[in-house]
């Protein structure tokens, strides 16, 4: 059970406070309700590029990291298709430094040409390092547009192509900032040896004076139901073939989300999971095989990815995975298997509470979905699941017409 208190400033910023007396470190996490899904299709990669720019100085503070390091702290951020999340950890006695820095960059960025020019290059190098100059690096650049036709999840957070990043102008940057970086769009959580009164005071002092900006209302196209199996085959200079399959699944707030999550656990959580036990170890058809979900806010993807052993064709590998999926459709998952997964989730939950930063990020994420209190109801969503529920979900989700397949072939 994670206890917290929540309040909203007059300008719309939501603030959550979680007291944890056991640590000298405080976590300051601020999440903005903007991700790659909010980008224009002709200017993708912008939310992520913007995350980099947020470290390039604000109107009153030329450098973000130096003062934080002076205070013994450090900072980082991540961007997903749904959100942009910034976090600082520092010794609790210097917490105010984080308030000072974070409020100034929400108030107004410095918008220097130098910062834009350099971060464009840095992001382009990141694009090359992680998506191009790596075996299998471009998989998500291929899979997303295969699985999504209308919804902006069809592009990756890094962007569709390097050109979009190269073309970003200062004008774009300013428009993006004032549209998305507003107090109403932010959720702040402070976790550590603090009091609610103290955080109220600091929030009012530093974030209170920031003006309310126009509320951005998100209107995204709904992905139409997929009606036929989609296949894509590519050839690349990689050492071995790889198989990828995606299935459309429910959105984060749907009850069916938990079913899909649990199905992925039955298939591939732990060494005793079905994929590892049967297809990797017993039959030895794959060198690795995983199932996982993209826990996205809008309707997401259930993903299977694997590398067939040398000598096993992609067709054969695909057929074997289909067989496993059909077993889930035909036979009930055993009570033992189900209990195993529930026990595992309980452990993960408890281990997750060891870090204040982890707790702060989760509280903000749940608050964005609707209510931070959901953090304490997650286990119930899983414990109530029955084998019958899982079978019904498997029938629905693993329909062949709901699937996109990528055969990623090694050039001979």
């Amino acid at each position, binding site marked *: 059970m994670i206890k917290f208190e929540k309040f909203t400033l007059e300008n719309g910023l939501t603030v959550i406070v979680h007291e944890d007396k056991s*640590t000298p*470190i405080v976590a300051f996490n601020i999440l903005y309700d903007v991700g790659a899904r909010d980008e224009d299709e002709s200017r993708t990669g912008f939310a992520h590029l913007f995350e980099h720019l947020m470290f390039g100085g604000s109107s009153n503070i030329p450098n973000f990291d130096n003062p934080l390091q002076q205070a013994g702290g450090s900072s980082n951020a991540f961007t997903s298709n749904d959100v942009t999340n910034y976090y600082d950890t520092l010794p609790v006695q210097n917490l105010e430094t984080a308030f000072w820095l974070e409020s100034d960059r929400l108030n107004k960025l410095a918008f220097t040409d130098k910062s834009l020019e350099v971060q464009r290059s840095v992001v382009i190098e990141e694009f090359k390092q992680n998506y191009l100059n790596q075996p299998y690096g471009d998989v998500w650049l291929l899979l997303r547009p295969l699985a999504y036709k209308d919804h902006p999840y069809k592009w990756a957070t890094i962007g569709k192509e390097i050109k979009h990043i190269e073309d970003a102008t200062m004008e774009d940057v300013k428009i993006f900032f004032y549209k998305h970086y507003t107090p109403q769009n932010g959720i702040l959580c402070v976790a550590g040896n603090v009091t609610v009164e103290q955080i109220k005071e600091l929030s009012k002092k530093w974030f209170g004076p920031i003006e309310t900006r126009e509320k951005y209302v998100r209107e995204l196209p709904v992905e139409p139901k997929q009606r036929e199996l989609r296949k894509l085959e590519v050839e690349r200079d990689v050492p071995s073939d790889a198989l990828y399959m995606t299935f459309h699944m429910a959105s984060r707030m749907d009850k069916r989300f938990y079913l899909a999550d649990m199905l992925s656990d039955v298939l591939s959580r732990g060494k005793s999971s079905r994929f590892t036990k049967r297809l990797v170890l017993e039959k030895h058809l794959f060198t690795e095989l995983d199932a996982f979900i993209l826990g996205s806010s809008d309707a997401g993807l259930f993903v299977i990815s694997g590398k067939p052993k040398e000598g096993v064709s992609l067709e054969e590998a695909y057929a074997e995975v289909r067989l496993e999926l059909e077993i889930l459709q035909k036979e009930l998952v055993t009570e033992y298997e189900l209990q195993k997964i529930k026990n595992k989730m309980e*452990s993960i939950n408890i281990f997750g509470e060891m870090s204040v930063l982890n707790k702060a990020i989760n509280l903000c994420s749940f608050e964005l979905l609707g209510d931070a209190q959901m953090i304490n109801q997650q286990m119930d969503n899983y414990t109530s699941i029955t084998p019958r529920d899982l079978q019904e979900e498997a029938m629905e989700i693993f329909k062949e017409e709901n699937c996109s397949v990528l055969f990623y072939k090694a050039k001979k």
Partner: protein
Amino acid sequence: MLDRITAPEIKKIEKVSYIEPEVRTLSNGMKVLGFNIGSQEVIQLEFNFYSGSKYQEKSLIAGYVSKMIGEASSNYASGEIMDKIDYYGAFLQSGSDRDMSHVTLFTIQKQLKYVLPVFAEALSKPTFPERELSIHLKNGKQNYKVENEKVGYRCRQLFTELLFKNHAYGKLADEATYDEVNSSMLIKFYKRMYSASNGLIVVAGKFDDSLYSQLEKEFGSIPVGENKRSFQKVVSSKAEKVYEEKLGAIQSGIRIGKVLDVQYGSDEFFKLQILNTVFGGYFGSRLMSNIREDKGYTYGIGSAITSMEDAMFFFLSTEVGADVTNEALKEVYFELDRLRDELVSEEELVMVKNYMLGSMLKSSDGPFSMADKYKAVYFKGEDLSFYDRYISMVNNVTSEELLEVAKKYFDPEEMLEVVVGKK
């Protein structure tokens, strides 16, 4: 009107607390270090053995021995142990570095009594079946081929081989090694190395005293064996420049460094750690500020000083755009020279000091981190006074002292440089 220009006052970190473990000994002589300091109901139980890769007759053996513990044992067929460990919601994590191996169980407290006998069986009676091993080796080989395509990985391999040319540290597996390892080699290595006299148990989290008697019951019968620990010091490395071209690469991997002949825990050692932080040890470091934040040549660049039992070495590494490889190299050497020519400014030094104290505070937070901090010095023959000396050095070191160690140890002429990619 709120003053947004002046930074809030910074309060110095007065102290970082380190905690001594409880020390117990099992009847077979195996030592147990206990850190009963958590606030969450979790336990980390770690078995450490002096059985790193430097003791193996052939590459891969040490790694696969630790990896396969938990897969099959005298009383459980392949997969049964993992199934039980998974069932109780526990996690098994094992691995091997150059000096040591470890097998670690993570569990929530209420499941400990169920999972402990299973873990004991896994650890003390593994069988390393030939069939499972051959699957791992085939997978490992395929994975090796994938990794080897990455300029960063290839660069690290080449660098390590050249830096430790005539030492076990430099003997790495290649594709062929995956065909040469068999089950009897693993069994032999396990029997020789995984004994009570050659290992140490570290337990951390929230537990009560009965844990020690449970450990005695489950692990008191691990054979006594003998201590196999041995040392063969490396004190220098050869300076050379090596370039391996990779066709079609759009980035180059760069790694530069040298072996340091410095005593772990000495004043010079601490000074070098501080100097390294200035150079490439944190986000605001000179390498990051210049090569990423000013020039935009890379997504990331950093440096470190790594201390192993037989050697200590300094290195920096990065992946940069292929078209700017030479420019990036030039900047790296420019920064090395600057470190040896100029005093670090007072402002920069204060930032580094505060940053380092903050990270020390962070990295000793919580029972598992505390156990790690203790182990790090314990295995090097030090005790917790190491951290007191470290903190005192961070607080008191001067720019002049840093310049002196920079001149002594960071001579570019003595460095090994490896570039893989395209220049």
